[in-house]
């Protein structure tokens, strides 16, 4: 019984932590580009990143299956190169969580970066600092509240991810059965005791991560 709860918990944490790390790195880079750079097709990039926010997760999941499956554009290439299929592994769950939580990260971070006074960046340029140095030491530190909010939202979204994960990673016991998926399974099969344990664990984990984030925000605000 305990194992039935611990395995989904460890899978969920593994998937959510990894996808949040990826979302943080790529989200910040994409947000910076959207907020500060001019490039062709910027509107398209903006739409593509935001799309999973408005699409039902099952649709996002379906599109990912089409893209990552053995016959898909990315999946076939990967399969030919390595003989490895991505679908129905926990890696696929990470990708699903990444795609659905990226828009939350980008929306909050891009608006936080846009709110940073450009004159400060220009000042750094005239003082001899490159764009990368300026981004790292001026822009991002001043946008840190928005960035942290984005990370917290993304983590929460990844923990709660259900639809897209079910489509691309399945619900394989011991491999891809995350908390949300396991709660659904336990509930469907009438295993209320397990469902209760899973629900309580998930609520505690969520509350803990929120409290931790709030503490960081406090410490970071000068």
């Amino acid at each position: 019984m305990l194992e039935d709860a611990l395995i989904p918990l460890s899978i969920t944490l593994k998937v959510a932590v990894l996808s949040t790390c990826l979302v943080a790195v790529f989200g910040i880079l994409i947000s910076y580009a959207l907020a500060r750079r001019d490039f062709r097709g910027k509107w398209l990039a903006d739409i593509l990143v935001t799309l999973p926010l408005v699409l039902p997760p099952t649709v996002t999941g379906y599109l990912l299956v089409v893209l990552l499956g053995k016959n898909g554009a990315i999946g076939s290439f990967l399969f030919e190169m390595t003989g490895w299929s991505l679908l129905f592994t926990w890696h696929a769950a990470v990708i699903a969580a990444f795609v659905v939580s990226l828009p939350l990260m980008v929306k909050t971070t891009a608006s936080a970066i846009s709110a940073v006074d450009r004159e400060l960046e220009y000042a750094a340029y005239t003082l001899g600092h490159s764009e990368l140095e300026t981004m790292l030491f001026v822009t991002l530190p001043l946008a840190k509240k928005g960035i942290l909010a984005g990370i917290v939202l993304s983590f929460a979204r990844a923990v709660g991810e259900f639809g897209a994960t079910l489509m691309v990673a399945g619900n394989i016991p011991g491999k891809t059965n995350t908390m949300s998926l396991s709660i659904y399974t336990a509930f469907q099969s009438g295993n209320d005791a397990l469902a209760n344990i899973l629900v309580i664990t998930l609520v505690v984990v969520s509350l803990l991560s929120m409290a931790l984030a709030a503490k960081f925000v406090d410490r970071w605000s000068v």
Partner: protein
Amino acid sequence: MGVKVSLSKKYRSRGRKGGRDDVFSLDVSFEVGNELVVLFGRSGSGKTTTLRCIAGLEAPDRGSIVVNGKTYYDSDSGIDLQPQYRRPGYVFQNYALFPHMDVRKNIVYGLKGWDAVKKEARLFEMLRLLHIEGLEGRYPSQLSGGQKQRVALARALAPSPDILLLDEPFSALDMVVRMRLRERIKTIQKELGIPVLFITHSPEEAFSLADRVVVLHEGKVHQSGSPRQVFYSPVDRDVAELVGVSNIFEDGAVVGNSPEGFVLEGRGLQFVTGSDVSGSDTVSWGVRPENIHLMAYDKDLLSDDCNVFAGTVLDVTDKGSSKLMAVELDGSNVVLFCDVPTRLLDDAMGLRVIVNIAAQDVLVFE
């Protein structure tokens, strides 16, 4: 040595509310030495864009910018140095101090690659130069406007820039702080011997600060010269208005000579000017409000002397230290604005007066 700027740029300026954007065309060229130069003009005349082009924060369409022999920009040879390689000392209008760094970190931020001991020495040198010792541990939010301005200056000067650019740096400061900082900038320019370009729209600031004034109007340089030249011999009506000549007579005729100078006629009145207008048939002229002298009306004072007119006070605006009076001259529809240095005359409305203007104060342009 010095600064040689010649640039043109077309850009959209912010249109009025609901209106469409206007295409603004900037076409500026001037050459100045290692002196204190004031770029003077109204807001929207292209001063800030010019300064940003020199710093490399905006790109001109065409032209060239050379500072102390170093080419920053040249459209013909395709040179366009990034601001990181121009490294101008730039003081932004809103100070642009890094809010997450204390004063110490702000000031040494431009000292990339310096070792710690040298950095520290330079920091204290700058703190002393701007009289802000003791503030190094504070954050920008804990500073007054004047202190922020000094820190911004210290940060700009710390890396020993080739040129110092200041964009309306004193516009948000009170009178006393302003005057002190002006003196500070003058001294610093003399000490460092680098070209300093200073933007302002205040005639008073331009006059008191500059070694040389470059007057910008609607994207063009109208005049460049010493403050005395610009203020006392404005080349055209636009410059005259900018430097505070508010009584302007356009397209009058040169009708003869008198012992005091040339006689001009326009709008039914004759003026005598001390300026040399030989060779012109028609000219425009103007008089500063503070150069017009008023006396209470007395028939005996009316004479054939030059520039003596009788008139009636139509309106009085109290400016505190002086009064601005609108005087309609007899026998014409001409209204002169006169700045009268008095705290008396509270009820001057309708008063009969005699107006007198010295021939040398009748400024001729165009």
